[in-house]
């Protein structure tokens, strides 16, 4: 019997596709819809301490092979998000609470809130490439990452995931620091620092100028990170970046991911992307004689 079920850091998922943070996940109803569409788990929008409008528009550039976005971490704030988490209680798939903060203390405050709200796990956004004082500004420093993870672990009993940035040559050091501090899984990768310029308007298109590249363009980059992380770490890895079809997902899994997250493809492919990936993956597994996803994890290293 071929099964898509996976277990990632004590989380049991019906399949290895997870909705990535920041995409259709700011409200309970959205999260529920994405779970109904077939996601094995859903990650919330990254939530901070206070309500935040994010950057003015334009916040998105469409490319043939992906998007550049600089949303600027808009979110209703952790207090208002209590209500969304309450409404999401009946969600058929585990809800992972993503949070961002500028200090270890703030991270642990938000994480314990997410735990109280019933999150199945907490994902630390240590990797947003375009928010001053947040995200990758912390996430490229192994000591800082270690401190954040340690602090969060000290207040949380749910699994803690660290979401890391590919925009550094120190990814392995950062990931090892997170692992040593007790992190339960690594999520790799967030978007890659990028920009688009309108030559007629003679200026960057995004209001924030810089943004983060996602989608097919970064799949080879994310895949490489996951492959290298798998050689380096003992904790599970969740692969993100340009997963658009079953083949992308299987590439990530063979590189060493225990599950994958899907963001841009929700726009580029549609809400049925989770279902399409799962159907294709299952057919592939039957064809190739894999009975479980875990049998495929990391086989590209052999």
């Amino acid at each position, binding site marked *: 019997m071929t099964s898509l079920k996976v277990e990632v850091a004590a989380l049991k998922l019906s399949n290895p596709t997870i909705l990535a943070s920041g995409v*259709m996940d700011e409200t309970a109803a959205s*999260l529920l819809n994405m779970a109904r569409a077939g996601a094995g788990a859903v990650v919330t*929008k990254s939530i901070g301490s206070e309500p935040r409008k994010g950057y003015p528009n334009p*916040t998105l550039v*469409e490319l043939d092979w992906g998007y550049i976005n600089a*949303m600027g971490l808009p*979110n209703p704030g952790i207090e208002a998000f209590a209500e969304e988490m309450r409404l999401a209680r009946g969600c058929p798939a585990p809800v992972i609470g993503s949070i961002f903060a500028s200090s270890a203390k703030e991270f642990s405050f938000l994480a314990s809130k997410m735990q109280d709200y019933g999150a199945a796990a907490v994902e630390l956004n240590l990797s947003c490439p375009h928010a001053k004082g947040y995200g990758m500004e912390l996430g490229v420093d192994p000591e800082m990452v270690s401190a954040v993870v340690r602090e969060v672990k000290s207040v949380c009993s749910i699994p803690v995931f660290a979401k890391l940035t590919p925009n550094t040559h120190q990814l392995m050091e950062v990931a090892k620091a997170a692992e040593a501090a007790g992190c339960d899984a690594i999520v790799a990768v967030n978007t890659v620092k990028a920009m688009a310029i309108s030559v*007629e308007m003679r200026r960057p298109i995004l209001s924030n100028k810089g943004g983060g590249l996602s989608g097919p363009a970064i799949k080879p980059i994310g895949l490489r990170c996951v492959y290298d992380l798998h050689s380096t770490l003992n904790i599970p890895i969740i692969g993100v970046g340009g997963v658009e079809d079953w083949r992308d997902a299987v590439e990530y899994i063979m590189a060493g991911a225990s599950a994958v997250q899907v963001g841009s493809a*929700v*726009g580029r492919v549609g809400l049925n992307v989770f279902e399409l990936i799962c159907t294709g993956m299952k057919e592939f597994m039957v064809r190739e004689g894999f009975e479980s996803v875990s049998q495929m994890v990391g086989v590209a290293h052999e």
Partner: protein
Amino acid sequence: MNKQRIVTITSVTKEAPGITTLRFHDEIKVKPGQFYMVWLPRVDEVPMSVSYTSVEKGITVKEVGEATRALGKLKIRDQIGIRGPYGNGYRIPKGTVLVAGGGTGMASLLPAVEAIGDPGRVDVLIGAKTAGEVLLLDRARKASREVHVSTDDGSMGRKGTVVDMVQEHLEMKHYDMVLGCGPERMLSALLKACDEKSVKCQLSLERYMKCGAGLCGSCVIDGIRVCREGPVFSSAELRKMKEFGSSKRDECGCSVKL
């Protein structure tokens, strides 16, 4: 895939005080009811329904804030960025159709009226605050059997709301479909009126849009993307939406009363 393109304004028409139609050339096909994300550098990028869907595209902008005021000041040869079209658009109905537009709602509806392509089976009802704001009247007349106007202050047509007129028309005649666009309170009343008479409708909604492309979730109503599954929804879909007519999301994603 909807790449940004820079277009040059080829005509500027003042439809009413504070309401301007901008035309420009763009080859990419648009269905009635779809919208662009319109970029004005240093100002903003905002969603705008496509009010002319031929190769010479157009948008019809009502000045309500910074971006729309800046759009209202544009002149021929100025440039704007557009991406899109986004959204589903109206399914062009068979049979007899009643079209009800409030304010700039007409901008989104008129291409649908023209796409029906048979004036004999379309009646148009236009609502506005006051006579000066009645939009696109001549264009509506050309494409339909009857056009009726209502204004809040009675300065043109009958005094009252477009929903009052809809109710009367649904009493008087049989329609196979109602198309509506305008302020959500109006749409909510419109849905009720249609449901009472068991007439199907398609209503076009507005929500706060950031990406426009179905990613960010800022435009959702009951978890459904107005920019992608909408902006046009059927009565069947609307009836299930708890937030329809009652609440929306602000830029932070907080729920606020309409």
